[in-house]
């Protein structure tokens, strides 16, 4: 359960709206069920009081929304950012994707967000309601009655291996500041590295063969803010709306992964939204791990203006041949 309440956030938003600091608020709007929260703009106190929510289903990262919202909005926008969201925020600023002056950031603490698919798996299909309490979730189901679940068991993958409870950008902070965490996020990558190339190929073939090229992973990604993606551009020569074969299936994902290297903050949105449950984060994390390994620790978005190692030549950069050897799992 989140330590900070919806009411606290509404109070803060009210104050900033009323004293003229901001003219609109980017927040999460309640849906039909307990879990289907939608990102929305709130323009008044009444709208906030009616529909604003902050609960364990507020996984959506608002940083990318700022790219468009700051162009449209006349006044300043209040945005609530969880620790992981602030990394995307900084990365977008590094890439000059929006005007910082038009945003007022309130950093909010996060206890980890819940994955409704995981709830379905654990409690059974047919979720009538989910109540988040201090000692776990109480899920009312159509077929299994009330089921109690430990929050830790149904967190989003990215929250299970949360890398930081620290906000790297904010104008104001609500609640206590946290720390960067020694996380286990590379464990799965290591498991893949230990596979033989054939096994690994088979793994990705199996996972990516489910892709329907809905583009949700790309469209949600804060690192994917090109005005027109090469895959949508008829002049690019690689435009494709659907993969014609397994080569094209992999091509989309490999190109996307390469394109976000050094810019992917590991925000986890791609894997969260994939309708086919493809573990896209593993591709990006392999690159993050390799960068750490070859060039020293680097976290995209940790600060504004940092140059990612891959776009920053230095004379002691790793040689290509060593990179291949080390990247193959020889982590010496």
């Amino acid at each position, binding site marked *: 359960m989140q330590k900070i309440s919806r009411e606290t956030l509404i109070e803060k938003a009210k104050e900033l709206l009323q004293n003229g600091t901001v003219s609109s608020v980017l927040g999460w709007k309640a*849906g*039909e*069920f307990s*879990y*289907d*929260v*939608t*990102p*929305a*703009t709130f323009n008044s106190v009444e709208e906030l009081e009616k529909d604003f929510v902050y609960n364990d289903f507020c996984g*959506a990262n608002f940083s990318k*929304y700022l790219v468009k919202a700051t162009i449209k909005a006349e006044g300043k926008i209040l945005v609530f950012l969880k620790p992981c969201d602030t990394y995307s925020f900084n990365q977008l600023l590094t890439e000059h994707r929006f005007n910082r002056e038009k945003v007022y950031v309130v950093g909010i603490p996060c206890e980890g967000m819940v994955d409704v698919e995981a709830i379905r798996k654990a409690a059974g*299909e*047919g*979720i*009538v309601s989910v109540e988040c309490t201090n000692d776990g979730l109480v899920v009312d189901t*159509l*077929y299994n009655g009330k089921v109690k679940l430990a929050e830790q068991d149904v967190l989003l993958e990215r929250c299970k291996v949360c890398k930081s409870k620290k906000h790297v950008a904010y104008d104001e902070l609500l609640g206590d500041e946290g720390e960067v965490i020694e996380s286990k996020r590379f464990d799965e990558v290591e498991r893949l590295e230990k596979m033989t190339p054939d096994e690994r190929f088979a793994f990705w073939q*199996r*996972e990516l063969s*489910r892709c*329907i*090229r*809905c*583009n*949700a992973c*790309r*469209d*949600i990604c804060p690192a994917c803010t090109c005005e*027109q993606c090469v895959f*949508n551009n*008829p002049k690019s020569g690689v435009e494709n*709306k*659907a*993969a*014609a074969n397994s080569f094209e299936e992999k091509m989309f994902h490999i190109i996307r992964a390469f394109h976000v290297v050094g810019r992917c903050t590991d925000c986890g949105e791609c894997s*969260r*939204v994939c*309708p*086919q*449950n*493809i573990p896209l984060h593993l591709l990006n994390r392999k690159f993050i791990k390799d960068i750490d390994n070859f060039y020293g620790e680097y976290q995209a978005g940790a600060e504004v203006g940092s140059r990612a190692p891959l776009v920053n030549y230095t004379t002691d950069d790793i040689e290509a041949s060593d990179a291949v050897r080390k990247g193959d799992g020889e982590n010496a």
Partner: protein
Amino acid sequence: MRKCSLSNLSAVFDKISENLALYIPVDTNGGAKFEKYESGMVMSEALNTVRSAKDFFFPQIEDVAAFKVEGKNIEVVDTRVIKDDFVIFGARACDVKAFEVLDNVFLSDPVDSYYANRREHGIIFALSCSKPVETCFCNAFGIDCTEPKGDVSMWKTESEMYFKANSEKGEKILALVADLLTDGEEKVVESEKAKTKEVLKKLPLSNLSPDKFGGGKTKEYFDDPAWKSLSESCLGCGTCTFVCPTCQCYDVKDFNTGHGVVRFRCWDSCMYSDFTKMAHGNPRLTQLERFRQRFMHKLVYYPENNNGLFMCVGCGRCLAKCPISMNIVKVMKTLGGKN
């Protein structure tokens, strides 16, 4: 009414698949999915597949012709691959109803011969739902999930599968497995249906109604100010259109193979900025217009041209899969008032 015990179902699968291709839903890391049956495969218990059954008749990508070029000669090759009958086992009532929606588009003049070809070869074993979930609202569109249409209707109890043929095609397949089936009692099926109907009443969307929508409502809804807030967070990703059993838009493209050309079609989405791109661009310039198109098509334009039939079957896939949790139910409730 015929039946077999669930433990005997694999024998039924084996027998059918000896004679023709059989597709059953199986579990994968990404949820249930129709796959070609091979001995030993286990049928998924999931209510629905992530991708709908429309893929059988309207696949995501399909070659429509190939052109072989030699000097000044161009040979046109028919690339149709489906030439034999196949069985889709376990499609639900909503997906089966969706075939009717697609038929109205692809089988009316001019007939889409690719779709027609697949449709003629497909034999549908439709399975009644026993455990509908919170995202289901087929009811709103007059679909009875306990009475699925199709060539064969099926009902599942704790231990048995019941079969009833509705067509000659269906009879034929049941005849293939006649040895494995015994007579089933109507009343078992009836009590099973009654149980499901009790659950249906408890579903959160059980009172949803499309009555405020339908043909002739274009003016009423087209300029509704609510489209702005409804569409504001839409990513334009197209997930909703791709998982939807009734979405039917496609693009036709040519692929240069180096020694000829393959013409194929693939799913397209009205949510995309490059949808129906013409010389001057996409006629719908903003995401609001694209978003509006999807829902107006389903709730107003399609029924207007198809005797009131809505272009949604309430399968709930878009409710479960939209990255921002925006969907047709929220649209209906917002535009039509809280009903």
